[in-house]
């Protein structure tokens, strides 16, 4: 798998992401600066977490206008795989690559805590190493993770099976208590219609090694490495 991580000023999760990708694929990802526009020869482009451009105006709004995002748009249009985590998810919505938006957490508090995610479908390049409706633990660290979209968009996402992950209890119940940021329909992650662009709010890349608390997130990167092997 040939992967690249796009770095913007203010991003801070790119090294965690690089470790996760290298752990699963055996290859260090290319680091692409936000002013670059060459994404040739890649299978996967990752937009990592952090606070691009200081979250000025809206989270991800500035990054969505940067030169590299034109290339990411073309890459996705050619059928390339794109993963956006946390700020990366916000950037994907601001860039129009995924529908909806991420608002301030309903509690108004920054949430730094583990959550549990229920896998809504496992027949994708990202989730194939999980079972459908499996639950895994993932750290979340965000102030603006409250997913919103209009009802028609939410119904379309559900109808077309594009909801990838939902906040759930450790036993897999989708409840209001487990949905700590207040996301519409407990949505934590969504796919593009071709299932090749995934935006996800929590951080699976931060649980890929027993030394840092677990490997719950590793199957996602194992799946990508296996499914996107050249």
């Amino acid at each position, binding site marked *: 798998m040939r992967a690249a991580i796009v770095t913007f000023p203010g991003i801070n999760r790119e090294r965690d992401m690089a470790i996760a990708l290298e752990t699963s694929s055996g290859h260090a990802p290319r680091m692409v600066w936000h002013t670059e526009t060459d994404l040739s020869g890649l299978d996967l482009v990752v937009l990592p977490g952090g606070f691009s451009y200081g979250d000025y105006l809206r989270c991800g709004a500035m990054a969505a206008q940067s030169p590299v995002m034109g290339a990411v748009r073309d890459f996705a249009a050619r059928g390339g795989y794109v993963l956006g985590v946390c700020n990366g998810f916000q950037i994907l919505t601001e860039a129009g690559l995924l529908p909806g938006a991420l*608002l301030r957490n309903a509690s108004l508090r920054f949430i730094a805590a583990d959550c549990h995610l229920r896998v809504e479908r496992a027949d994708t390049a990202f989730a194939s190493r999980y079972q459908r409706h499996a639950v895994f633990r993932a750290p979340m660290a965000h102030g603006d993770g409250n997913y919103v979209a209009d009802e028609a968009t939410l119904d379309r996402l559900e109808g077309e099976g594009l909801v990838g992950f939902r906040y759930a209890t450790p036993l897999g119940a989708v409840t209001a208590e487990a949905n700590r940021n207040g996301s519409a329909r407990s949505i934590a992650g969504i796919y593009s219609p071709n299932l090749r662009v995934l935006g996800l709010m929590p951080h699976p890349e931060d649980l890929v090694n027993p030394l840092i608390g677990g490997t719950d997130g590793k199957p996602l990167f194992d799946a990508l490495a296996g499914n996107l092997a050249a």
Partner: protein
Amino acid sequence: MKAIVTVMFKDGVLDPQGKAIAHALSGLGFAGVADVRAGKVIELDLAETDPARVRAAAEDMARKLLANPVIERFDVAVEGA
């Protein structure tokens, strides 16, 4: 010429900051605050001097960057117009 772009959450979009401000106002003893919505004001100083063109430019900027049409609406006021 200056244009003032006001960006507010659309009706129906949860505005937790507005709710928190309303809560704080009632805590300060201000009675009868039915609702509070919080938004942004962006002041643009443009080289253009024709009010109609200033408005059109500011609206274009709002659509493309200053507001997110998924969750926000905007209003443009042109100085002196």
